[in-house]
């Protein structure tokens, strides 16, 4: 059996060697400490060479030795020796420490912390073991997947390492013919090489094919020491263009400004660099699976805010739309977290009636994709909950296109409201006419005082498309004002005038004081979700 494997390995190596410039170059790289897969990458090798776990540095070494002797005309038997054969270049492997590739730092060698004790016997981790662990995790978390794709994140220091090797090769071989041909663009990135290595094996373990836009694996690699060294070396290099410094007062002495330069640059780098946790398989697998639901919900209570409202650790309002909908969706999809996105929002004391407002729920790390029936289940749970705070309809699973649609709608669509208004004198027929005759009324609103603490002080032009007064039987000073406005209009301020900062206001139009008691949203014109 062993010989069959080695025969296969040999064949793969023979094919691969066609891409090599010459055995001594490969020798050289191996001696410098580059791992086989990195060597394959640098010379643009594709295909099975990456999946073959048996190709260790020593195996490659021996193969090349054999090739050399073949070239020299000396016949040797064709068996590729297994990893136990040592030769002078690879003697360092048996020692700990220097066993990792000097470019990819072991990423393509699939070695991980746990293997350290086993370093001497099986230096290059088997691809199968690696992917088996990944598959294990998927099973444990009970994910149901129909495909996968792999995302890889590697520390920038690897790029720096590769560059160093290129510069080394450039210095040594720049006059040689093959070097000019092998332009760097031919080489394959570490990320692609990793994918080539583990794709097929993963497909076998998981029983599904890899493809875009499916379940995504994120492999986060980081190397604390190497990254730190890189950071400090970059910081010391003052010619590095990445530094951005705040303009300091001219009063600073030269020394001070240099110091602040370095300090800023260090922080800048720290925030730029990738996650610096030591590479361990277990904690590094990071899934991100998003689902989207779109529903127009109706909010029936004036005690429910859109999102959780907490001031000083105390919850304001009794509940929130976000929580009611999100928690139910989370339960059914068996996810970790949810995010709630709506096409606009209203104050806690405003009811959302009529057709409702469209929104999106994003469930992250969902382990289960709900079917139509499950979706219906969510709707029922929400609608039939005790307090009947929120009602939803038209719930379905959507893709990311819906997101764009919703965001567009938020800014463009018109909204319809019904407000309970009181004025300081009796309502007349003329008033009704006055109000309903104004079409597309332009108003200017300064940022309302109630939000001025967190929004920019601006003057915003808004349009009131139409208005209609509905008398209330039994009262001459109260009436219902129906109006349709541009998105982003502050209705309350339009009614009472916000101390004159919204002009014209209902009070100004009718020539008296006007107050608003109740506000309800009756329609949000975004029908394309139906």
């Amino acid at each position, binding site marked *: 059996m062993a010989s069959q494997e080695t025969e296969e390995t040999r064949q793969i190596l023979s094919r691969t060697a066609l891409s090599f410039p010459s055995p001594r170059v490969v020798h050289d790289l191996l001696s410098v400490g580059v791992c086989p897969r990195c060597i394959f990458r640098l010379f643009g090798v594709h295909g099975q060479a990456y999946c073959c776990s048996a190709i260790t540095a020593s195996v490659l070494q021996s193969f090349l030795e054999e090739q050399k002797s073949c070239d020299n005309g000396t016949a040797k038997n064709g068996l590729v020796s297994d990893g136990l054969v040592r030769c002078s270049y690879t003697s360092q492997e048996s020692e700990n420490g220097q066993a990792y590739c000097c470019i990819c730092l072991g990423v393509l060698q699939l070695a991980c912390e746990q293997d350290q004790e086993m370093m001497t016997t099986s230096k290059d981790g088997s691809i199968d073991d690696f992917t088996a662990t990944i598959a294990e995790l998927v099973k444990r978390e009970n994910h149901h997947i129909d495909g996968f794709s792999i995302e890889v994140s590697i520390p920038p220091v690897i790029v720096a390492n590769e560059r160093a090797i290129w510069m080394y090769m450039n210095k040594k071989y720049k006059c040689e013919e093959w070097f000019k041909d092998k332009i760097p663009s031919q080489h394959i990135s570490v990320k692609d090489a990793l994918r080539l290595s583990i794709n097929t094996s993963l497909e076998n373990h998981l029983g599904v094919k890899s493809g875009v836009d499916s379940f995504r694996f994120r492999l986060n690699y980081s190397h604390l020491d190497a990254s730190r060294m890189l950071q400090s070396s970059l910081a010391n290099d003052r010619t590095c263009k990445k530094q951005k410094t705040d303009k300091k007062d001219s009063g600073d002495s030269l020394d001070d400004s240099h110091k602040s330069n370095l300090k800023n640059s260090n922080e800048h780098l720290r925030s730029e660099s990738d996650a610096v946790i030591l590479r361990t398989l277990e904690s590094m697998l990071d899934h991100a699976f998003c689902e989207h639901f779109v529903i127009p919900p109706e909010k029936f209570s004036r005690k429910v805010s859109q999102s959780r409202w907490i001031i000083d650790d105390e919850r304001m309002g009794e509940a929130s739309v976000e929580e009611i909908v999100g928690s139910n969706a989370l339960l059914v999809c068996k996810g970790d977290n949810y995010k709630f996105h709506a096409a606009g929002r209203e104050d806690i004391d405003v009811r959302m*009636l*009529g057709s409702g407002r469209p929104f999106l729920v994003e469930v992250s790390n969902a382990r289960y994709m709900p079917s139509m029936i499950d979706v219906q289940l969510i709707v029922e749970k929400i609608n039939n909950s005790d307090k009947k705070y929120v009602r939803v309809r038209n719930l379905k699973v959507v893709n990311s296109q819906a997101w764009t649609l919703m965001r567009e709608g938020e800014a463009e669509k018109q909204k319809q409201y019904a407000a309970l208004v009181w004025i300081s004198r009796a309502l007349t027929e003329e008033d009704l006419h006055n109000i309903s005759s104004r079409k597309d009324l332009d108003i200017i609103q300064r940022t309302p005082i109630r939000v*001025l603490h967190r929004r920019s002080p601006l003057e915003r032009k808004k349009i009131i498309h139409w208005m209609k007064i509905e008398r209330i039987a039994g009262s001459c000073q109260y009436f219902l004002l129906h109006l349709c406005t541009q998105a982003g209009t502050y209705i309350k301020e339009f009614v009472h005038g916000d101390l*004159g900062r919204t002009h014209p206001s209902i009070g100004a139009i009718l020539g008296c004081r006007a107050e608003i008691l109740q506000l309800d949203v009756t329609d949000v014109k975004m029908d394309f979700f139906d």
Partner: protein
Amino acid sequence: MEESKEDETLERDSLETVEKKEEAGEDLRSLLLPDIKDLPPIPPSAVESNFVRYFAADFMKPGHDQYVYRHANGLCVIGLAPTHVALREKGGVTAVDYNVGKSDRSEMKVTGKRKRNAQHFESNSALCKVCANGTFYVVRCCVKGSLLEVNDRLIKQPDLLNSSADREGYIAIIMPKPADWLKIKDSLLSHEDYRKLRGL
């Protein structure tokens, strides 16, 4: 014969849809319309509902009564209280000038969410001068904080002070730091105490 039956069904269906829509409309209306008996004859004003009203009586000078309306978010609206001497003058207020020597307060422009370029003032800093019956009265900040906005409408329409000094005739909006507010809060009068003091 069959055709007419189909027509009938179609008509019925469309009628049903219309009825359903009307029903939904009716439901909506019933939600919107209030119960008359729940409505107060005079509801609280926007200022009353959203602000807590404080007053500074005889601020730095006798008769200079000013109000500080504080919103739940911490912003303070400053203005002339109804018992301010300027409002009692014959002819009322005739001019408002935000140029108080050091700078023209109406010139400043505050931008951005953090309002970093707002000017900081002490409680006794001058905001503007109001002219009534030939006399100039200085209006001050009353609260230490950043000046966010002045009511520049007063420049063109000083009469707003005579008609509604407590609403459209406000002088300025100031944002005090929480610590600064706590210090000054106790020296101000509540609405009740102010009315008692002035015998209103």
